[in-house]
């Protein structure tokens, strides 16, 4: 198995405030990694750095062969390889579901309209929304919108998918439908990194669990560490999460 994501001593500051204080971990092809940790521990920042929405100030980060610390990095190539989904769906409100999904294949890959539509049909069917192709985002529930956002990323056939608390804005029954889509993706062999508060989901699908605390990886291992953590901090974090 080859590493598709490799972070070595990654440092990131906003002004004088250091948020990532030397983060090191790797994710292999086909693996699902779950990043957990308290609010403000730098999980989202780490994820945003992986798609070069933020630049890092120290260490090295290699994502699908792209060296993110290089100033002459080919961003277009990076973003073809990496898909990212946020908590707040961010669908384009003036475009239909199908148009949202077709946009990047057409503009970035130069695929013709008819073929792009076929791709869109396939990925939208995959997230279970075939009958919503020509709806506008505001006509969909939050869970449906989030599934469209996932489909929109999948249409670019990424090698790596990043998810940042994609179910946090949803109520419980809508959360389930989004998690099922992600579970299916994992089963299909997609390499995924997900920041999540859903401990049950992490336990079920994650090959690797990364517990972050104060801008560092505090504990890392297989999903077994959620059952038997070796640091007291992770033990506390898990028992706190269980109370919610």
């Amino acid at each position, binding site marked *: 198995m080859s590493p598709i994501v490799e972070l070595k001593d990654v440092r990131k500051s906003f002004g004088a405030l250091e948020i990532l204080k030397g983060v090191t971990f790797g994710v292999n092809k086909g693996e699902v990694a779950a990043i957990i940790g308290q609010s403000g521990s730098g999980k989202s920042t780490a994820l945003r750095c992986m798609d070069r929405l933020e630049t890092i100030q120290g260490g090295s980060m290699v994502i699908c062969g792209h060296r993110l610390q290089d100033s002459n990095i080919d961003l*277009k190539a990076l973003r073809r390889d990496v898909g990212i989904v946020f908590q707040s769906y961010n669908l384009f409100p003036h475009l239909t579901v199908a148009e949202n999904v077709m*946009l990047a294949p057409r*503009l970035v890959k130069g695929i013709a309209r008819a073929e792009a539509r076929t791709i869109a049909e396939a990925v939208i069917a995959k997230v279970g929304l075939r009958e919503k192709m020509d709806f506008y985002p505001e006509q969909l529930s939050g869970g449906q919108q989030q599934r469209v956002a996932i489909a929109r990323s999948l249409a670019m056939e990424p090698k790596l998918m990043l998810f940042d608390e994609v179910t946090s804005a949803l109520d419980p029954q809508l959360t389930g439908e989004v998690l099922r889509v992600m579970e299916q993706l994992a089963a299909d062999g997609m390499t995924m990194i997900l920041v999540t508060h859903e401990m049950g989901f992490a336990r079920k699908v994650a090959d690797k669990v990364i517990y972050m605390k104060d801008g560092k990886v505090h504990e890392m291992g297989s999903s077994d560490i959620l059952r038997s953590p070796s640091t007291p901090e992770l033990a506390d974090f898990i028992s706190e999460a269980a109370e919610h």
Partner: protein
Amino acid sequence: MNMTFIISLLEGLWGTVVLSVLTFIFGGLAGFLIALARISPVAALSKGTAVYIEIMQGLPLLVLMGLCFYGPGIFGYDSLTPLQAATFALTLYSSAYLGEIWRGCLQSVARPQWEAAECLGLSRWQRMKTVILPQALRIATPPTVGFMVQIVKNTSVASLVVGYAELSYNAKIINNSTFQPFLYFGIAALMYFAICYPLSVQSRALERKLNVANR
């Protein structure tokens, strides 16, 4: 009422329309470029246009007209015709205001929309064209039309400095010989209204249409 005077008012109306349309076209094009420059990541562009806007918004239109009309002569160039000078001044003036209005509209499209498009690999221009502009257009319609109505009325300043014959100028000339100010200024007022009112109506219709299309 004298037919010659009515014809003179209609000629003035035509002058107003010509100057307004030229201003919309040139001021709109320049204003669009200024709006793009204002939100450009290139500091020189955004700072430079910010200064330009400050200067243009700080000058009375009347003074700007004077500078455009007499300015070229002072520097030894052939002076402009009244229409050219008035168009030039109104273009400078409206480009600053439209640039600022449109910058606000572009920036009011939420930042995550930019990011979502960026993460999909769209280039800066593609993001602007397919994601930001269509959403900004809807927001921009009411203030833009409001400003166009201002421009139609502000064309009257052109007669004061550069002697351009537009509607209010001709109304004044007629009044000087007829001494029937209420009649002829009243007709001029109706003519201004006849241009400005349909603009506002169109704007509301367009807004409704965009609201349906851009849910």
